């Protein structure tokens, strides 16, 4: 990120041919400037990095004409901690802790990506029970993440109650995850070879108790926010990303599926126990914020379904394969990806046979969504900017790394 004082005094944000204000959303009449002979000015507004609604420390420079956004630029780097550089100085068992802090809402998915990468290089076979535990915690984590997304999305629109209801449900999930891994958020649970500890006794009773009420609560959440006409009016037709644009920008995950492309890493390149679990993948049509909302609500239902299957079908066995204490994968290169709550989290690992990675690149799904946002924001109103960022569920922790 550059010196902040330069940006605003600069010539303006419209670079050559980059930003083309798309078609205006329904109901907006784009007034030509200089109407009635008045000279008007565009304001360059700085949104963030401290702001009650941007999801993390995101700074958007928005050029507005009244309330309509003319150009937008994302200025990031406020959460850059050098995860990729630090990974070059960590043993492979410890890289998971760095991944936990990248996308900190979906820690299990990040840890799983690096674990899969190491396992592919070392050709380790993960025991069946470990795979089932991985799937279980991964779907529990997805539920926790989507509940936060739901709550903060509601909060962005001004509906305060929904945030606390989703936090109430998330507390039950975090209790379960704490019982399993010892931590509420930075789990450090999935390691190359399996998981670090077996499921504790009595955990299936806890999960069953959670699942009993969760489906009803989820219907309530959906009715309260999604069934509200004001909310629907604010998200329908907003932030449309069509499938071609989504693919060209490299968007993955729920955002891509909402645009119409049916691709889920759990189905295309199955890992952990997902080949054995039954679940549907929701796909949208239009690619607006409403579709993204629907896709994530459906994903929550599917995740609950998978958690139930995992609990009922949990096999017996080892929770981790026999791996050496210090992992030394042979020299080579590998790309391993998982379907995290935000999209495809990938780890591109380059190893030179040492006990630390030579180069680890963390493919963050939100980064590709963020650059697409710069392209789709022009033409919307200022209030829509907040809605679009909220609907795409960007996470600065993984963007900045």
């Amino acid at each position: 990120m550059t010196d902040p004082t330069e940006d605003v005094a600069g010539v303006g944000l419209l670079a050559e041919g980059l930003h083309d204000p798309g078609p205006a959303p329904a109901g907006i009449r784009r007034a030509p400037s200089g109407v009635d002979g008045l000279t008007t000015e565009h304001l360059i507004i700085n949104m963030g990095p401290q702001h009650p609604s941007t999801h993390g420390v995101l700074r958007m420079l928005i050029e507005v004409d009244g309330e309509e956004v003319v150009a937008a630029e994302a200025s990031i780097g406020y959460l850059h901690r050098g995860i990729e550089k630090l990974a070059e100085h960590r043993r492979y068992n410890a890289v998971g802790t760095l991944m936990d802090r990248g996308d900190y809402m979906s820690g299990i998915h990040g840890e799983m990506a690096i674990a899969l990468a190491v396992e592919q290089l070392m050709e380790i076979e993960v025991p069946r029970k470990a795979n089932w535990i991985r799937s279980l915690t991964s779907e529990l984590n997805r539920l926790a993440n989507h509940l936060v997304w739901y709550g903060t999305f509601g909060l962005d629109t001004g509906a305060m109650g929904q945030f606390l209801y989703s936090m109430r449900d998330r507390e039950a999930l975090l209790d379960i995850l704490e019982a399993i891994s010892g931590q509420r958020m930075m789990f450090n649970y999935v390691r190359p070879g399996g998981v670090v500890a077996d499921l504790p006794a009595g955990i299936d009773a806890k999960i069953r108790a959670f699942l009993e009420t969760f489906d009803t609560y989820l219907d309530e959440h959906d009715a309260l926010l999604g069934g509200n006409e004001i909310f629907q009016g604010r998200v329908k037709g907003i932030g449309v990303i069509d499938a071609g644009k989504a693919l060209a920008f490299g968007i993955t995950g729920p955002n891509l599926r909402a645009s119409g492309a049916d691709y889920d890493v759990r189905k295309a390149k199955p890992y952990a126990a997902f080949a054995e679990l039954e679940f549907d993948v929701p796909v949208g049509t239009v690619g607006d914020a409403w579709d993204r909302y629907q896709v994530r609500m459906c994903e929550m239902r599917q995740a609950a379904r998978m958690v139930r299957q995992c609990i009922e079908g949990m096999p017996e066995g080892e929770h981790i394969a026999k791996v050496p204490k210090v992992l030394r994968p042979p020299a080579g290169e590998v790309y391993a990806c998982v379907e995290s709550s935000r999209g495809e989290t990938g780890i591109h690992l380059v190893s030179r046979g040492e006990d630390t990675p030579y180069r680890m690149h963390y493919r963050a799904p939100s980064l590709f969504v963020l650059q697409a946002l710069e392209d789709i924001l022009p033409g919307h109103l200022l209030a829509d900017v907040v809605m679009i960022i909220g609907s795409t569920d960007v996470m600065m922790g993984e963007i900045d790394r």
Partner: protein
Amino acid sequence: MRPDATDSSAPTGAGGEGTEAGMSLLGQTAHVRAEAVIGTLAALKDEGYESLVDMFGCDTGESIELTYHLRSYAKDRDAYVKTVVPYDAEVASVWNVYPGALMPERETAELLGLHLAGHPNPRRLLTTDGVPPLLRRSVAIRSVEEVKRR
């Protein structure tokens, strides 16, 4: 998969001596010269690789190896295009072919010390002015004493 005709120099892969010595589990990879990158990517995009999944660089010790990771959802196949550039080289931006490369290119150029050409917004992305290219092997992580001294 037929990349552009002007093909690779000796493939100095990042994973050890070359892609034969260190095993690459990536699948189909094309090693091309730096000038041929845009042509190769455009050819691949015409062939159906409509998505850029990732773009990053790696400091191999003598040079910087850039990797473009493409995917065709229709064929469900991944492809990698790798090229090697010297330190402080100028890299042509591929955003016209794949707009998904906008921010990854900025990040790679900034953290590995390259210069971007043809990019609409080639400014730094993640670090502030004055920070050295952090991902180079020559830039060391600060020791505890250094951190305390500041």
